[in-house]
């Protein structure tokens, strides 16, 4: 216990870009979150860990506007914000890779990359909503190349891609658009060793571009490899937020399982 240095709120001096305070959320009588606390610094990769059903996905879905919290508040740049739908989150520069990917399987990778913000042909054609398919295809190809994502054609329906390739498309979409915060819910779950390494590398790159990253993962070695800080959730409660460099895998497991008491 003494070996652990714990970052309590506002002890770091760096203003958090995003803060979730005392978030509560229940579904019927299932309590998904009792006390979700979370602080994200602008220049970090922040991992959220916890057992199945701990409330990780629920917490990030509240941040990305999919769910509405029953209590608590979310602050962006220190100001309370109410993100009532995913579109608002996107406008604020928050992009999310959902655990279930949220891709339109019948559409191709290019269409998915631009879904909800299609490029249009110049006026007057844009008034009717004419798609600029060529530009979108080119930019999608460029994006795939930049991220070293190997898919044969960006004009192939996503349903014909492998699980890993699909995941890569979802990750590419978030990275391409997120300009403040990128959230990834188990982005490496379906990936092989090489592809996982690639996604982790992408996370570092995103961070180097000054974009904060929230990652959820069950793979602790992976978390220790990339994350600057770790927040542990247990049964809907934030148990601890720890600097990765100051903790050990055993300690994190201890917090996850309840062998170690809550710090905060």
């Amino acid at each position, binding site marked *: 216990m003494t070996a652990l240095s714990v970052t309590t709120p506002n002890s770091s001096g760096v203003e958090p870009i995003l803060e979730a305070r005392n978030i509560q959320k229940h579904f019927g009588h299932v309590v998904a979150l009792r006390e979700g606390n979370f602080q994200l610094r602008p220049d970090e990769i922040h991992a959220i860990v916890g057992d199945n059903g701990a409330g990780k996905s629920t917490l990030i879905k509240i941040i990305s506007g999919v769910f509405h919290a029953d209590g608590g508040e979310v602050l962006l740049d220190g100001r309370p914000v109410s993100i009532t739908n*995913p579109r608002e989150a996107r406008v604020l520069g928050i992009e999310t890779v959902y655990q279930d990917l*949220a891709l*339109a*399987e019948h*559409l191709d990778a290019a269409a998915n990359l631009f*879904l909800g913000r299609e490029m249009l042909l110049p006026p007057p054609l844009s008034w009717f909503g004419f798609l600029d398919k060529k530009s979108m295809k080119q930019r999608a190809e460029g994006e795939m190349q930049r991220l070293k994502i190997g898919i044969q054609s960006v004009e192939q329906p996503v349903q014909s891609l492998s699980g890993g390739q699909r995941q890569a498309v979802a990750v590419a979409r978030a990275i391409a658009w997120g300009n403040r915060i990128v959230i990834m819910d188990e982005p490496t779950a379906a990936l092989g060793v090489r592809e996982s390494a690639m996604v982790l590398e992408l996370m570092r790159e995103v961070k180097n571009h000054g974009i904060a990253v929230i990652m959820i993962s069950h793979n602790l070695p992976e978390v220790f490899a990339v994350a600057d800080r770790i927040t542990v959730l247990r049964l809907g409660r934030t148990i601890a937020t720890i600097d990765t460099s100051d903790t050990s895998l055993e300690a994190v497991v201890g917090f996850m399982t309840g062998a170690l008491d809550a710090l905060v």
Partner: protein
Amino acid sequence: MAKGKMGSSVKHDVIAAEDVITSELTRGERALDLVWRSWLFIFLLGLIVFFWSQTPANSFLTGSNFKLIALNTSEVILLAIGETFVIVTAGIDLSIGGILLIAGTCGGKVMLALSGTHAQVQMGLYPHATTAICVGIAVCIVMGTAWGLVNGLLITLLKLPPFIVTLGTLGITFGLSDLISGGTNFFAPVPPSFTDKIGNGTFLGLYVPIWIAIFFLIVAHIVYHHLRFGRYTAAVGSNEEGARRTGIAVNRQIVKVYALAGFLAGSAAVLDLAIFTNISRASHSSDNLNAIGAVVIGGTSLFGGVGTIIGSAIGAFIPTIAQNGLVIMNVPSFWQEVLVGVTIIFAVYLDQVRRRRSSK
């Protein structure tokens, strides 16, 4: 050494065998795909050849008869276009036949009421025909769109299954139409100038309704494949929750699609009045069957996400060719419905098989 060599040659053989298997599989798959893609043409062609061989010479396979078939198909095409968009959202619209009927009933009534006094119209005089026609057309279209909007709003706001909502509005529109018309034909035909110019009018050798259907087809094809509207329609049908999370206004899109189907049913009502000068429930009881049949036979998946406008247009010819041929053969045209019904089931089965194969 020798052992190692043998081992490697065995390995090599195995790989070669696998290669053969996979290439054979893909060849088989390719053949199946080709059959899948062209079965509709083969089926249509078979139908035409069948009727040609079973009817007296110069009755079925003539230019004028095919123009007639195309005329009868024009309405189904409009309905099928709307139904295609709806089915691509993974929904269904069972009410378009009822919407057509109520739009046509109201539009026709208004047309007659504005054409002149009751006595004048009964004597075949239509002093204000032009105004009456314009207002009547507007009533048909507004009426159709409004019922489509009602469908869309009920589905999205009350979160009800499209199947139930549109089945309900089918009953409502059929019932209301009969209440409005008293269950009988209009007391007089719609203004003759309307019929002459639109219903029986020709342009470049084809009936005007056929041109109207072609126009709608081209526009719908562009909307589906090249406009954001088409892309959002497919996205909603492919993954509704995913579409919502990318910021697409999913409910608004669904409402628009049902309104579009209603608008097209209203437009089909205009054609119906112009072609038949009258409108009755009996002639629209199988509209839903024909339109939904055209869409699924044409290759649009009932599960949403993918569709084809052109396929639906081709599929729309199945019921009309069947009806036309059976009438010439002197067979009760009720067989048409039987044939369309069987073909629908076959088409959906084919789609299922294809999906199962591609998801393997």
